[in-house]
Each structure stands twice: as structure tokens, then as C-alpha cells.
């Protein structure tokens, strides 16, 4: 009954450990979490599964997060999809690029509290915590 209402969240991160923590956390918190191990797979899954929100890493093999974001914005569905950058790279040039691509936020992983992150995303979808 409840699976239909679950928000679909795509987590694109080449770091297996970090990706799995995020998938587990969001699954526990009532989301349907899907993982992608690099930018290319992430872009394919996004265009195929049309998730409600994408958490995107920046430095990844095959295709970087900024490139994925650029490609998404070219797509009819992708141009409006909610994207949040979650990275270890705290560089102003990436931040400026990301902000121009209309994203929900640019966060450095080591500064993000997992519960606060979940709360923030729940607020976006107006899900009661």
C-alpha cells in the first residue's frame, strides 16, 4: 500500500561505502533508494527510472557529476528534476557551476549530518518527520 507513495531517490556515488550508507538510511526513512556507481550509470538510471530527487557526487569515473547535471538539464524530464550535490570537493568553481544549473544545494559530505539531510529532503516533499 505504502510503496506507491514512496519517493524515489537516486544516489549517484562511486564510493561504495558512502553510497550504501545513504541507500540504507533513506530506505529506513521511508524512501525508495536506488544506487548508481558512476556518472554514466547514474545518468542512464535517472533517464530510465525518473526518480523524484537525485543526490549527485562530483568526482566520479566515466562521467563527473557536473557533466551528468549538464546532460540532465538538456532532457525534457531532466531539466526540472530535483538535484542535490553531495561531494567531498569544496571548490568554489564547482559550486558556481552547480548553482547555475538550478540545484537544491551543494553540500560537503563531511559537513552533512545524516538526520538533518533526511529532514531537509522530507521538507522538500512535505513529508512529516
Amino acid at each position, binding site marked *: 500500500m505504502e510503496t506507491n507513495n514512496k519517493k524515489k531517490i537516486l544516489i549517484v556515488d562511486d*564510493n561504495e*561505502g*558512502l553510497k550504501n*550508507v*545513504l541507500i*540504507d*538510511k533513506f530506505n*529506513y*526513512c521511508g524512501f525508495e533508494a536506488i544506487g548508481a556507481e558512476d556518472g554514466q550509470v547514474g545518468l542512464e538510471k535517472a533517464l530510465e527510472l525518473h526518480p523524484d530527487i537525485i543526490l549527485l557526487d562530483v*568526482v566520479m569515473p566515466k562521467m563527473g557529476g557536473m557533466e551528468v547535471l549538464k546532460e540532465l538539464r538538456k532532457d525534457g524530464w531532466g531539466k526540472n528534476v530535483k538535484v542535490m550535490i553531495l561531494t*567531498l*570537493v*569544496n*571548490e*568554489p568553481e564547482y559550486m558556481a557551476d552547480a548553482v547555475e544549473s538550478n540545484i537544491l544545494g551543494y553540500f560537503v*559530505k*563531511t559537513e552533512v*549530518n*545524516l*538526520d538533518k539531510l533526511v529532514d531537509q529532503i522530507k521538507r522538500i516533499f512535505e513529508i512529516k518527520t
Partner: protein
Amino acid sequence: MIKIKPYINNTVLSIVIFILLLIAIFLSSGLIQELIKYSLTHYSINPIVFNTYFNSIIIFLVFLSIFISYTIYLSPINFIWFKSKKNDTDNSSILSKEQFKDLYDDAPVPYITLDKDAKIENPNKSALRFFGVKPEEINNKNFFSYLSGEDQKHAEMYFQYYKSHIPINKKEVELVTKSGKSRLVELSIFQMSDFGTFSNTGVAMIYDITEQKLLDKAKTEFVSLASHQLKSPLATTKWLTEMLMSRNLGELSQKQVEYLDKLHIANEDMIELVDLLLNVSRTEMGSLTVDIKETNVEALTESILEELTPLISKKGLNIVKQYNSSLQNIESDPKLLRIVIQNLISNAVKYTPTGGTITITFDEKTNIKQIIVSDTGLGIPKDQQDLVFSKLFRAANIRTSSTSQGTGLGLYLVKSIVASINGNISFVSEENKGSIFTITLNY
């Protein structure tokens, strides 16, 4: 020792010019003319001949004086000519032509002489080594045809610059060598006028910066890579701990909560340390980028205080805010300024005993903005105050205190960053009374 001497005796020349002009004036006066005519008649020479050429002689003498004055004093071309003439005859203290040629040929910097059409005429040994060629392989080729990569497209533009006598000064360009490899160089071309023919020649100087650029790139990449590799496991540990602490995997015993809490704190300290080390590396390697934009110092400070709230509450510290609204919108680098203020407030929190007071003041006096962080903490002993901003310095009184958590890198980093954003940092401190750190912006 080689001395550059004045190349000509100015006094002698001035006298010569003066005498020439004097003769011209003398000749032009009526009395002298009559005397000369009388003398010529006396020797049976027709004075009409004299009359015909008389004015021409005067004009010639005046022009001769002007020409000598111009060549000696004013013309840069002949300045060089006279100088070299003088040098040829005086070997004792000035570089001879041979010495100059040796200097040119054996200089470690590649020099290439170009003709008026930018054709290579005389590359020195370093230039031949740089291009990996023999003289005959490079002579008479257009210098700008060696531009490569993106710069190849601008070859014509550079050539026109050269033809128009526009100097090229330390321009970063790519040049291709015989092996086909491109080298990044700083190119300077200055022009010289050749006396006699008045045709222009140029000298190109090449400073190879390929290795230097690669090193700079490697430094920046190292910091990025280190940042990524070191922070990945720390982020994983942080999130796993947070998952356990939020009871996502079931209830925890009191001891488990206590241990997870300690694990979390230790991990946060490690994240802070890694960030600090990476920032120190960035400043030391010169790869710290300064991005000046609109900065709200008040908002920055408030977010730092929010982060430090758990520790401030735990120690029961009073925070006094004396904000000035002029610091709500300043031109600075918010990311770097945040590191500076964060370090100062964090130090004040760490080294102020329970119940103490921390005062944060924003001040503006005649367009000079100041951020002042003062505390009622341990203070810095007088005899160690000179070392406060040096790397790995930790004051004796904090090393022995139980609150000892510092790395000795914080204030070192703060000083480097403040300098990079055109600021200045100063402090006054008294042991067991407290410290006042003042950041002055737009110093």
C-alpha cells in the same frame, strides 16, 4: 669589475658646437663680411664668388652644429653607435664586442636575433638546445612559425605586433621544438634599431616554464586527491556512526551510546584536522584560490557560533556580540574569512575556562573594518608571544592544561589566509586574563 663609463666627453663636444656657432655668427656680421671682401680684393679674387657662397657657408655651419647636437645628445640610435665606438677603443672597464658576443652565445637563456621580417638570424647555443636544432635548420625561418597549439592561430597577430614595433613582454605561449613536442614559455621580444641601415632587428628571449607549470598542476592535484582520499573514509565513519546513534538499527545500551558519542567526536576532530592540514598545504603550495565576492561577516559568524553551540553550552561560556551593520556586506572571500573567524572563535572557546566570556566585535573606522575576538581565557605567556603565528607553536600553558586539543596550525593558517585577502592580524594577551585578536580588513 666592469663599469659603464660615459661614452663621450660632454664638455669637449659642447665647446666644439659653441665654436661652430660662434664662427657662423661671426661670419654673418657685416663688419666681418666687409673685411673678408676687402682681403679677397687685395688678393685679386672677385668678391662676387664669395657673395654667392657666403650664406650657404653660414647655413651649413648652423646645420652642422644642430646635427652634431642631435647625434650626440638626442638620437638613441647614435647613442648606441657612439657607445660601441667608444667601447672598441677602451677595453679596460667596459664590455668589449667579443665579451658581449660570448655573453650572448653562452647565456643559459635562449636568445634569438630576428631580422625586420622576424626571420631567425642568430640563435645562441641555448636557443639551439631548446629547439633541438643546428643553426642551418633554423636560420631564415620565421620565428612566429614556431608557435604551436592555440598560439599558432595568433602567429599572424604576433608578427604584426613585431612589424609595428610593439614589444612582447613575458607572454605565455607554446613553442614547438624539432621533436614535435610543445613547450610552454614566457616569450619577450624587444627591438633594436641598427645604425647605418636603420633597419629594425629584434631579440627574442625564451624562458621555459613547462616544468614549473607541471609542478604547479601536480601540487593542486595532490591537494584535491588528498582531500578526496582522506575525507572519504571519514565521511563514511561519520554517517555510519550517525545511523547507529539515530537508532535506525535498533535500540542501544547506555554504554554503546557513550562509545558511539566518543567515536563521533574523535571523527569530527579528525575531519577538522584534515581540513586544516589541506588548507595549510594549499597556502604553502600557493594553490589557495582567493575568490572575492559579497560577504556577510555577521551571517558567517552566526553560523560558526551555531556549530560551536554544543561546546559553548557545555562550558557555560557567555557570548557577547557587538556587531556593526557595515560588516554585513563587504568585499572579501567568504570561504577564507570563515576559516579565519572559525579558528579565532574556536580557539577562544577551547582556551576559556568554564563560565568565561567571549566578545565578538565588528568595528569600522574610516573605511577600515575590524573583526575583534576577545576572551577571558588562559592567555599567551609574554615570552612566547613572538611565536604565536609560527607553525606548530603551542603555548606552554595550554600544552599542560587539560583542555589541550590544538594542533599548532590554526593561527599559522589564519595569518597566511589573512595576508592573502589583504588583511592584517594582531593580538594582545596576558596570561590568565585573556587574549584579544584583531583582524583588520582592506589593510
